[in-house]
């Protein structure tokens, strides 16, 4: 994973705070299931390493969210209370097709490939190779009705 100093410096303080709040609104922590919130992950470190070309898009999406917040509430997104934040995100999500699209896509990739998350899901945090996976050979007697059919191809 990229070093934190580099990845933290990618965003302004306002963008950073906005991002953390938004990430936990997309994937909040769930104590019962033992699932971390998305803000607990080093999201920008991930983006820096694996989706570098998305950084500018992500910044624009954060700025746009703050702009909407200022326009509607005269303060930035982090300055809103929880209810207003919720209401704003809900409105933007349902009215703008592309709202936070890059953040959404990248956090899904980041979250569901993260060690902590995989462990919480009961999966091993490892690459597919070299250990591989067990897959059921499958019950080939299910083919019996197919075997009984006459030939299906034309000569």
């Amino acid at each position, binding site marked *: 994973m990229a070093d934190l100093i580099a990845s933290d410096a990618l965003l302004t303080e306002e963008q950073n705070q906005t991002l953390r709040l938004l990430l936990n*609104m*997309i*994937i*909040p922590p*769930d104590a019962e*299931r033992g*699932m971390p919130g998305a803000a607990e992950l080093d999201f920008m470190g991930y983006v820096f390493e*694996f*989706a570098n070309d998305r950084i500018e898009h992500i910044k624009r999406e954060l700025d746009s969210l703050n702009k909407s917040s200022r326009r509607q509430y005269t303060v930035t997104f982090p300055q809103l209370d929880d209810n207003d934040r919720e209401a704003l*995100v809900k409105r933007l*999500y349902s009215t703008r097709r592309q709202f936070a699209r890059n953040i*959404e*896509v990248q956090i*899904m*990739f980041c*979250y*569901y*490939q993260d*060690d902590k998350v995989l462990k919480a899901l009961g*999966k091993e*945090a*490892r*690459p*597919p*190779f*070299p*250990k*591989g*996976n*067990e*897959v*059921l*050979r*499958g*019950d*080939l007697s*299910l*083919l019996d*009705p*197919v*075997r009984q*059919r*006459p*030939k*299906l*191809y*034309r*000569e």
Partner: protein
Amino acid sequence: MAEDIADILIIGAGASSAAAAWSLADTRMRIICLEQGDWMNPSEYPSNSKQWEVLRQVDYNQSPNIRKRETDYPINEEDSAVSIANFNGVGGGTILYSAHFPRLKPSDFRVKSMDGVADDWPIDYKTLDPYFAQNDRNMGVSGLAGDPAIPWHEPPLPPIPIGRMGEAMGRGLNKLGWHWWPSDAAIISEDYEGRGKCLNLGPCNSGCAQGAKSSVDVAYWPVNQRLGVELRTRCRVSQILVDDNDMATGVLYFDENGVEHLQRAEIVIMACNGVGTPRLLLNSPSAGFPDGLANRSGLVGKNLMFHPIGFVEGYLDQPLDSHLGPQGTCILSQEFYETDPARDFVRGYSLQIVRGQPPASIAVSGTQRGDIPWGARHHEAYQKYVGRSVMMAVMCEDLPELCNTVTLDPELTDSNGIPAPKITYRFSENSKRMLQHGLQKGTEAMEAAGAFKVYTMNQVRDTGWHLMGTARMGTDPENSVVNEWGRSHDVKNLFIIDGSIFVTCGAVNPTTTIQALALYVADSIKKNLANLFD
């Protein structure tokens, strides 16, 4: 110093080239293969990393226009409803292919006589049968004998696991009384010829780190090299040269540093695939061939066929771990393969049931579709979808049409200044109707298997995996580019062995047939050595 003349020069080191080189090696002739790409390093493949789902998106993307490796050439696809997928390197497209390995069927070679459309091939299934079998042994193919939808054949290795997902779909298809069978796969289900068996890594489409997928860099080339075939990488051929007697004399190529070289040869064999081969022929005009080499028929670059593809994705209400196992192969239904006059289209399609989407991709598509919401319900909804997705490709037969073409782009070039190919392609009305039928039947199959949600995707653009028809074979020089054993009608020491020579394309992935054809052409060269150029 004596001039360096190869007996046989093969251009490209992909699926067809590897098979032909293997066969021709026993002539003990001097065989040189020029390949524009590199050898692959399996330890760099994405499945060596936990982040494989994201690492495969650029460097191992199927589109050369996204991948943009130094060894790739750009392709103008603006005028095409389908975009090209390929890989340029030792192994060619097999580096990224799914290794789904069904053969064309007897009727596929006789489309005109049976259904009154397109043209018959000048050869038939029986001619290719021994070459299919030889290639299965060379590649290492897994499958189950006894499928009533194809003439009897016995793959050398037992089928790859179909998993809970294959069982669930099989039960659904049984309810409908439809055909299905475990797919033939060029993936070794047991250790074979020094290669370790498939470990069910999943992402075959970004290279197999285990080497169990039979890409030809592992299945053929090491053997070919031991047999004496010389394979030179980073050699990009720009032109094939001919003399005044219409005989090929060799090729011009650029090395890694952009230095141009001449390689002379007695016989030139083209194996650059259905886009690369017409590109190179069109870029080799001469006084005798002003419209491109071997193009007196005017058919070089015409009749481009893909397989028009749609997808059906179903989510089943049971945990299936459907993302595990070789990504692109599981089971195949060919219930709707042969022509049925009661339908509003001619010819038919396969339903290729592949594995489900992997865990992070499920989250991405689920959130975008609104199935997996933001907020408190996210975790619960994710569990409902992960491991339960089933993907099915509706793979239709395309029919050859003169309007679907590969030409040279007047402006776009590769890094050596060689004109890029330009693709012009649209779906025919027949294909559109066939796709519609397939999506409906695919949906029925998903529902029969118990899907609680089904999505269909029509005329999917990023599916130009199968490149065929652009230098077709035939007995009539007016109506074909190569004869019935792959030799150019116009240039008697020039052969084509890749998917370009397909007359029609059936409704199955083409590589097993491409390789069987390559072995057959190589064998024909050997049998006709005494009078090869008559």
